[in-house]
């Protein structure tokens, strides 16, 4: 039931990442209604105040909005979602590249490995 969290970082920050991932990944489609804070908190096994804080951060980022009576929704602004999606993907790739570099794999070699991954002949894409 409860999700696992990294020790050294605030839980709310990890919740922001996870919820944001579900929005940019399409699991929570644009314009869809989110569960209540209490239900989301229960599903993640976290304190409702912590979940509230994570949702407030997503609101600040323009990914969700609150309608006073109807609840909380994912933004319908698909451009904004795409923008955040791109930023997130780029940041993930940079982190990965830095990690590979630390293991002695320079960007050139990394690019080759990515190109090999993109070859359709080896294995069918997932």
């Amino acid at each position, binding site marked *: *039931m409860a999700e696992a969290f990294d020790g*050294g970082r605030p*839980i709310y920050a990890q919740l922001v990442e996870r919820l944001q991932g579900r929005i940019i990944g399409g699991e929570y489609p644009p314009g869809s209604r989110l569960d209540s804070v209490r239900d989301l908190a229960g599903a993640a096994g976290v*304190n409702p*105040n*912590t979940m509230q804080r994570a949702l407030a951060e997503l609101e600040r980022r323009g990914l969700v909005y609150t309608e006073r009576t109807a609840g909380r929704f994912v933004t319908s602004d698909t451009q904004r979602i795409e923008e955040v999606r791109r930023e997130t993907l780029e940041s993930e790739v940079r982190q990965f590249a830095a990690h590979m570099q630390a293991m002695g794999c320079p960007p050139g070699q990394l690019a080759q490995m990515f190109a090999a991954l993109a070859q359709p002949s080896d294995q069918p894409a997932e």
Partner: protein
Amino acid sequence: MEEILTCRGLSKNYGAKAALQNVELHLSSGRIIGLLGPNGSGKTTLLKLANGLLQPSAGEILVAGHKPGPASKALVSYLPDARYLPDWMRVGDLVGMFTDFYADFNAAKAAEMLSALHLSAADRLKSLSKGNKEKVQLILAMSRTAQLYLLDEPIGGVDPAARDYILHTILNNYNENGTVVISTHLIGDIEPVLDEAVFLQEGRVLMYRAADEIRETEGKSVDAYFREVFKC
């Protein structure tokens, strides 16, 4: 935010031994707070003082502004660290007794939790294992709609699967304006549900901070930080 539990200069001595020394605490409503400390740091003493089971040696303790007494007890749901329910009673009788005793007791909620944990109303307390007795006690405590829940080691004796369910129960059942104080040394298990943590050391408040703030500034979990602070 309203203050639900107040300690001012609170001290408690057992003979020559000081169990609590000059404790200042101001806990707000709507939070889940971990009362954390090694054995003998004063956790149980603090909770007993809040329930009027002990009298302060100095200073005062107030629940929503009331000294411990009938007015405070109507607001507080207390789970003691010891088993206190009569062994010969059946689970269903206990539910009936709590319904009679507490105006804010929700028997339907209790029944739902009992069935989720496979406890039958017909079971005599005597016939239950230690862990299952603890579950019954906790269910009774969480089935009240209290302003303040004081839970002394609520998960110590129960298995990890039931522990998850119990934490879930605590998260889902405390009312929005209620405050839950959980005393424990099993910090890892309860960490994700905590708003704030109070560290007690030898009867003094070592610190009182938001759990996420500890993680942010110390760069480690509350559990890891606890182990560092109280390293033997």
